[in-house]
């Protein structure tokens, strides 16, 4: 296991890679299978894949916790409860793994992958992250000049366009609803019609997944809106 200390903003210039059955994230600071984030908890939710925790470290990051690990799922459920009952700030230290469908996701599936910390630890984590990143950036600038932010971003863009031609992406569904919503939402049948080339079951599953993840809601039966 290799760990990189990151801020949410660092994900913009990173890309997902899969090598030897491993889900990895390639960043300006190196490549790792485990990513550490630390932020203030600002929203919680439940999905069928596990609790969703949204932290903020300057930017927001949502993670699904415990899809494949009951132990960390229990920890996350306790955090959800604590968040709903508490008025004070809660800070979390999280160890997640990258994976990608149509966009990059961070999933937490290791024991003790979510830990409640105090504000002092939050500050120290980010001090440590910055100094480690400065060191690694210098190291990679010297040794691997090709791994640079802009090039990585372009790489991601190209790949997404390429993938969209062959597969149904979540963002395409969201964009369609957003563009066709005149205020009352978009009937689900319009979505089925527009994406008629795709398997109906797959499409229904995607829509359900987007609702579970908090991207869409159903203001009335069989009508969908994007949660902005």
């Amino acid at each position, binding site marked *: 296991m290799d760990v990189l200390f990151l801020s949410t903003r660092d994900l913009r210039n990173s890309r997902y890679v899969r090598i030897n059955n491993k889900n990895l994230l390639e960043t300006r600071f190196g490549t790792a299978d*485990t990513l550490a984030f630390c932020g203030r908890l600002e929203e919680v939710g439940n999905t069928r894949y596990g609790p969703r925790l949204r932290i903020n470290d300057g930017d927001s990051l949502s993670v699904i916790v415990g899809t494949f690990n009951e132990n960390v799922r229990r920890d996350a459920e306790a955090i959800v409860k604590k968040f709903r009952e508490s008025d004070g700030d809660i800070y979390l230290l999280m160890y997640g793994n990258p994976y990608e469908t149509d966009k990059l996701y961070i999933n937490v599936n290791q024991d003790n992958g979510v830990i409640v*910390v105090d504000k002092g630890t939050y500050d120290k984590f980010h001090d*440590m992250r910055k100094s*480690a990143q400065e060191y*690694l950036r210098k190291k990679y600038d010297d040794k691997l000049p090709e791994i640079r932010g802009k090039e990585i971003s372009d790489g991601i863009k190209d790949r997404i366009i390429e993938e969209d031609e062959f597969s149904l992406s979540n963002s395409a569904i969201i964009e369609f609803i957003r563009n066709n919503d005149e205020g009352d939402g978009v009937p689900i049948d319009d979505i089925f019609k527009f994406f008629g080339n795709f398997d109906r079951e797959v499409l229904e599953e995607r829509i359900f997944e987007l609702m579970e993840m908090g991207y869409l809601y159903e203001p009335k039966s069989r009508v969908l809106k994007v949660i902005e």
Partner: protein
Amino acid sequence: MPIEKFLDQATENERFIANGFIVQVYNMVSYYCKRCRKFSDRMCECGNFPEPIFRISGLFSDGTRTYPFITLNERIAEKLSGVNKDNAINLDKKEIMKKPYRIMCYIRNKKLYITDVLDKL
């Protein structure tokens, strides 16, 4: 006096000071059977119940590199965890993982040996 380094900068057997987090805890209590002269489970294959040894192992990272680590003796495990040996068995792994550490250490065979815990960061 050892100098402060990133884990990625350190060379084998060099003593240095590192700052980082324990990102995973594998084990906190080990058992060594003096009769069989080997590490065992809580009950050794020979039927003996060896004395528990407070020894913390896991993964330590400073963001530049991640190493498997082990505390060198029980005093260091006590210092790292803030609990004494008698309470080690009830120690929650998350308690150890929720704060950063400043440690004295060395690397041998790609493993980090913690020889002292300095003031917490």
